[in-house]
């Protein structure tokens, strides 16, 4: 016993001596990491990192899921959008050339021709040609998962020559917009990937942390739970300047307050989704800058239009008048958002500044309720929202308090999303009365919102208000075919459809939250692009 104990202590002692020797010996790199974390980046660049570590770090709150560009439909686009490129880039100012330099269509928008950029190299060394585009899109369609449905309109893809490609469509569609999608529209190196094996083998290869893209950065290290290191692709077609970053790291930090600490101290350079309460304080902090941009997200509350009393349009309209829209944005979002004007978020096609929507008017609400036959309310509604979502919780509480004034009792039930959804998809007469949900588009088209949430469905998917209106369906189905060739007419049709929705009030349209990014003063050039949610395009960032 004694011998064992003394041996153990001896081992500790040796350990301690070795460790302390190391600590004092390796002063240089460790103190530098230390000063870097507490002092500002500007003063430390001179004495800290060796010339190789010119790095920008994005503090992100959720883990990565998959890295397969054909099937990824979640937050890994944060990586993919930097490592791969699409034919077209969506910006709020319009569609811009990316891997395609120009495009045109025939008169009715059923044949689209794209002219590709010359001299684009993949990270593997191969040159990008039209064959790669055809292979990438066909693989996505073939695998049929996640965002594959965006290519539904495509009938045939024809390689005209190395830099010209033609898409033949089953029906007219806005193909350039589809080709700019953040999900499922990335171009991969077909020569390299087809040698690996079948689709599943390729997917496995991707998820091991490899990529076959043309983007400015390549995947260097892939740890989906902790960090993803991207390193600069020297032969990127866009070229490089000295003040851009050699390395970009996506660091997974789930705790928002921790991310806040890290960005103010300079340990990370950019982050988002910080507690909104702290934003005013951060605005005054000289070490960081706050960027606010409207996102394409919207919060809805769907009425169960198949159950009494919500099957009565007047009741739904009354309730829509009993929502304090502006107060909700001020209180729940601390002003970082906009009151919704209908089902389409601000900044997108299909948003109309002059749309007449419901405003807070309790008297009108009471009047409509009385007209409907419920002068003092007298009924109970079950409302479900996603457990853990603070904003939804607050909105639900506000609604409950407001509708109490009308004599309506609201039972709030936080539920896990899958359960909530399963309940709503089951028998409408047994489902909840109100379901709160966010929506955001796969690519920025109003059809994504209107079709998924309000198009008549025999088997319920996301039309959780069970709305069924033939005229509405006809209008939006026609509008989407005109988006590419006659945007003005498409807009008119969308407006007509949205007005129907507002009149029938199958849902409450609450607000569009802003994207709020906070970044350290040592970087510059950041501009949020709502078409690529949560993506930071590292290529656009420069040292300040």
């Amino acid at each position: 016993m004694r011998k064992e104990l003394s041996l153990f202590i001896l081992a500790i002692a040796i350990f301690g001596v070795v460790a302390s020797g190391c600590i004092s010996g390796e002063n240089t790199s460790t103190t530098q990491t230390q000063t870097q974390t507490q002092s500002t980046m500007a003063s430390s660049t001179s004495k800290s990192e060796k010339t190789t570590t010119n790095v920008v770090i994005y503090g992100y709150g959720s883990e990565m899921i998959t890295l397969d560009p054909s099937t990824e439909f979640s937050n890994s686009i944060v990586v993919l959008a930097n490592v791969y490129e699409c034919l077209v880039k969506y910006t709020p100012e319009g569609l811009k050339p990316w891997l395609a330099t120009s495009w045109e269509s025939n008169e009715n928008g059923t044949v689209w021709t794209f002219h590709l950029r010359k001299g684009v190299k993949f990270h593997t060394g191969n040159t990008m040609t039209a064959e790669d585009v055809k292979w990438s899109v066909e693989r996505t369609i073939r695998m049929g998962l996640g965002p594959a449905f965006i290519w539904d309109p495509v009938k045939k893809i024809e390689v005209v020559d190395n830099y010209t490609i033609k898409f033949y469509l089953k029906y007219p569609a806005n193909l350039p917009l589809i080709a700019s999608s953040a999900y499922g529209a990335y171009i991969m190196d077909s020569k390299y990937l087809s040698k690996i094996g079948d689709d599943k083998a390729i997917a496995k290869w991707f998820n091991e942390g490899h990529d076959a893209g043309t983007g400015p950065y390549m995947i260097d290290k892939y740890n989906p739970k902790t960090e993803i290191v991207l390193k600069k692709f020297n032969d990127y077609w866009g070229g490089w300047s000295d003040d851009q970053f050699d390395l970009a790291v996506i660091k997974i930090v789930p705790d928002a307050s921790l991310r806040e600490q890290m960005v103010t101290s300079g340990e990370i350079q950019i982050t988002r989704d910080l507690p909104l309460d702290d934003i005013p304080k951060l605005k005054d902090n000289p070490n960081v800058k706050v960027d606010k941009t409207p996102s394409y997200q919207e919060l809805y509350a769907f009425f169960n239009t198949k159950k009494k009393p919500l099957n009565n349009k007047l009741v739904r309209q009354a309730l829509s008048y009993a929502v304090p829209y502006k107060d909700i944005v001020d209180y729940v979002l601390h002003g970082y958002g906009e009151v919704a004007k209908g089902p389409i978020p601000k900044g997108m096609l299909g948003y109309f500044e002059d749309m007449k929507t419901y405003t807070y008017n309790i008297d009108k609400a009471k009047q409509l309720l009385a007209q409907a036959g419920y002068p003092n309310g007298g009924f109970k509604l079950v409302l479900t929202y996603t457990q853990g979502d603070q904003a939804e919780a607050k909105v639900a509480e506000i609604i409950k308090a407001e509708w109490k004034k009308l004599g309506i009792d609201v039972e709030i039930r936080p539920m896990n999303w899958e359960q909530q959804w399963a309940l709503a998809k089951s028998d409408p007469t047994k489902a909840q009365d109100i379901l709160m949900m966010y929506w955001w588009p796969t690519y920025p088209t109003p059809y994504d919102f209107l079709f998924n949430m309000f198009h008549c469905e025999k088997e319920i998917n996301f039309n959780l208000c069970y709305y069924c209106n033939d005229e509405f369906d006809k209008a939006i189905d026609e509008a989407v075919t005109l988006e590419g060739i006659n945007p003005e007419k498409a807009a008119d049709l969308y407006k007509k459809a949205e007005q129907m929705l507002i009149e029938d009030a199958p849902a409450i349209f609450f607000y569009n939250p802003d994207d709020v990014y906070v970044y350290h003063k040592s970087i510059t050039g950041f501009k949020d692009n709502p078409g690529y949610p949560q993506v930071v395009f590292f290529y656009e960032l420069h040292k300040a």
Partner: protein
Amino acid sequence: MKFREYVIYRLVLAVFVIIGVVTVVFFISRVIPSDPAALWVGAHPTPEAIEKAREQLHLNDPLLKQFGYYLWSLLHGDLGVSIRTHNPVAADLKSAFTATFELILVAEFLAIIVGIPLGVYSAVKKDSWLDNLSRIFAISGVSLPAFWFGIVLQLIFFKHLGLLPLAGRVGTVVMLEHPLHVITGFYLLDSLITGNFPVFVDALKHLILPAVTLAMYPVGLITRQVRSMMIEVLNENYIRTAWAYGLPPKKIYFKYALKNAIAPALITVGLSFAYTLIGAFLVELIFNWPGLGRYAAYAIMSMDYPAVLGVTIIAATAYVFINLIVDLIQVRLDPRIKL
């Protein structure tokens, strides 16, 4: 019972315990209304995608058949695929487990080397200022919330003194400059083996605050238990005899008395070890430690049942093994305890 027979007997029992736990957790997690297929396909799926997922995950089969599938793959060492992350559960668990285990090992080590001597000397100098101070210390360790304490340590040592890092297992920049070849998953061990001293030192620095935070609870327990047992033992006749023989005090305390007093404290260490494996969730969140607690919390919140089952198996196995080891150590130390 002889030693070897006893160990085998305990191991066999362990297998039954683990199977029992897995069965219960499997049926509970599948009975709770939720839709794993929806979790699998991600946001905004088409009904066809969900149906496809349902086929893939055998969700249309009867529950007993699904349980059969699970047990079968378990026997082949396959813990399934996480429905949330689409990664094999075994791989997810390995990295999470080694991260947490490293943290707990260091924390328990700190708790033992501080708690035992403190407990002994409090008992010896009973009711002195040292004793009262250590009792306050012990109570605080057990009662103060770990997440509060962790944040306070961060405030003092990172924000104000700038001595230690804020969070994480190792600095991003240090890892970029000196890439670590991961063998076991224990950064301290791997960096020593590969001679990567910058990472070793950095990992050690990152370990200090979370380990101290995690050690607060066991150190409190150990100090109190060692103290109370020592007080009892020190009053025994054989100790009085030792004093009469003129044996040196240190020898009496640590060789004769402590050996008999240490048993309950060891049991506590054993149990707290297994408990902290998953209870470390809040500490892991504050220090951004990619460990088992965090993984378990996310798995449970999204009803990711293969991951929940994987975590359950780890937890049950840990409890069973650590308890076995602790029982065996007790026997070594105190011959009065019979197997």
